[in-house]
């Protein structure tokens, strides 16, 4: 088998497994997995920038929230139906990521991390400042009647699972396709050695900007879907914590691997779910995992797997 057909078989099998799981899972885990798939889409968006382009952003909550508010506010304030609202969320993510990319990409390394952090913080504060529309930290609920997309009621558990699955599959296939295109190869070349990529004649800035936009828009789509599927929009999703989460998921699962974000999200979601039953200080787990990962497994789970067993893993 060639590497390509191997990877297609593996990812196809993962998708088939996720599709089949909805028929056997008990209700609680059924709901959880739908949530994990949407969050994993967010992580996959993050992974395009961090894992494949090598740019560490600390501000992806800004994109997630841009998609969520773009969707939520157009339903809540403009009375849009879910279809156009999703598009509005997507457009908001596109605009915000293009603006942020154009500014933040003038910096590199640590400065890039701080600039993205600061812009995301400004975004969060903006959501609080316009509390009359966004209802701030309290957030607002999207009513069941407003969540019917093309005749499908997204508040129904089965349909919600299926919608989350469609989103996840869409993002997974996009990333899988991306890493096999020449464009994706250039991104990896920039990650490995930016100067060499520049010397070979590639427009590094344009490629990085495209990566930020792609990554931000995918994160925004996940944010818009999260709000629509679970019926809640709030400023919590714009806090620093939601910029740290995708970093944590991707690091844990394996940066620069297609399946890493799913593995990381699934693992972390259940780790926090189990520990929050014991203590309110569940973020302690996140902190410990972050430190242990940087110390012992900077490659993440899928990365270690690739280094030891499946060298062809994309």
């Amino acid at each position, binding site marked *: 088998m060639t590497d390509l057909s191997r990877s297609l078989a593996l990812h196809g099998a993962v998708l088939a497994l996720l599709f089949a799981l909805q028929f056997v899972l008990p209700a609680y885990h059924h709901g959880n997995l739908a949530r994990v798939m949407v969050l994993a889409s967010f992580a996959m968006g993050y992974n395009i920038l961090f894992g494949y382009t090598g740019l*560490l952003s600390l501000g992806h909550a800004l994109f997630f929230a841009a998609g969520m508010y773009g969707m939520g506010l157009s339903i809540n304030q403009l009375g849009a139906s879910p279809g156009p609202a999703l598009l509005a969320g997507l457009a908001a993510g596109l605009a915000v990521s293009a603006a942020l990319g154009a500014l933040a990409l003038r*910096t590199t390394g*640590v400065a890039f*991390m*701080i600039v993205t952090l*600061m812009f995301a913080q400004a975004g969060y504060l903006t959501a609080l400042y316009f509390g009359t529309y966004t209802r701030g930290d309290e957030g607002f609920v999207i009513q069941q009647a407003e969540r019917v997309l093309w005749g499908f009621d997204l508040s129904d558990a089965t349909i919600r699972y299926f919608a989350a699955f469609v989103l996840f599959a869409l993002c997974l296939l996009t990333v899988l396709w991306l890493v096999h295109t020449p464009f994706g190869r250039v991104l990896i070349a920039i990650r490995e050695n930016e100067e060499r990529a520049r010397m070979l004649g590639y427009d590094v800035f344009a490629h990085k900007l495209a990566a930020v936009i792609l990554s931000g828009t995918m994160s925004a789509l996940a944010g818009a879907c999260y709000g629509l599927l679970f019926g809640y929009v709030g400023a919590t999703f714009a806090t620093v914590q939601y910029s*740290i989460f995708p970093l944590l998921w991707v690091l844990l699962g394996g940066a620069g691997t297609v399946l890493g974000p799913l593995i990381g999200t699934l693992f972390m979601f259940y780790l926090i779910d189990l520990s929050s039953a014991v203590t309110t200080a*569940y973020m302690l787990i996140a902190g410990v995992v*972050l430190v242990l990962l940087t110390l012992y497994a900077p490659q993440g789970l899928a990365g270690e797997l690739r280094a030891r067993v499946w060298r062809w893993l994309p």
Partner: protein
Amino acid sequence: MEFGPYLMLASLEGAVTAAVLALTAVGLSLVFGVMRVVNVAHGEFFMLGAVLAWWLTGLIGGHPALGFALALVVVPVLVGLLAVAADMTVLKRIGYDPERTIVATIGLLYIIQQVTLMTYGPEARPVAPPFNTRIALPWVEWTGGGLQLYWPWGLSTTSYKLAVIGAAVVVLVGVWALMTHTRAGLLMRATQMDRDMALAFGIPVERVYAAVFGLGAGLAAFGAVLVVPIQQAHYLMGGDPLLLSFIVVIIGGLGSLPGTVLAAVLVGLSDGIISVFFSPTLAKILATLLVALVLVFRPQGLFGVRRA
């Protein structure tokens, strides 16, 4: 009250903010300057200083001044030692790689914060100030006979607030003297200028790093002990000092100590005055945007000099 006395009161409050901010930010700036890493857990060392001060003053009975004086000496050392331990167990092992250090210190941030939540709890707790006399402040006005001093109602400060400003100035002068006039300072500056050359001359760079990381955390803790009689100790109180220190360090020029102090005074003073005219949230939005744009368009900081 007229505008003049009001402005004076705002500047005095601002000077207290600036004094504590300068201590915290100089700690962050020192770590960045010498070690070239950003310590995201810096605000948590600040918080730990406040919480430990509450714990220690509660432990020591008797006059509040006794426990407080002890806290002022012991707490920064304790926090500094914890930071040294964190440096040796975590940062040293990842080779002070800038990006991995940020991820690791984010992890440390959550560990310190959440362990405090589990042990100290979610309440905000006050610490009694060692002394707290009210001092009425005079203001001048024109009367028929010329300039005259008078004491407007409500224009006052406390002796403790003035002491905070004094203590911060003393410590900052101490840090300056340490950096410029001692052998330890010489080693730090040598490490800052050229790590490899310092290593070649036999300077124990890793021990210098550990000491600087401890010193930076200790300065933040000292600032927190000073501020805790004015502002209560809470497990989430590290967020604002971290953000403000970032702003100060970036505006002052990354790694430049005089620039950091100048920016701290500027930000501390303007913080109070801006909040009078705008809503605090809008002031914060403008401040964070300003920092981001400074980093994008003037990475050497407003007062810094561009390095070759």
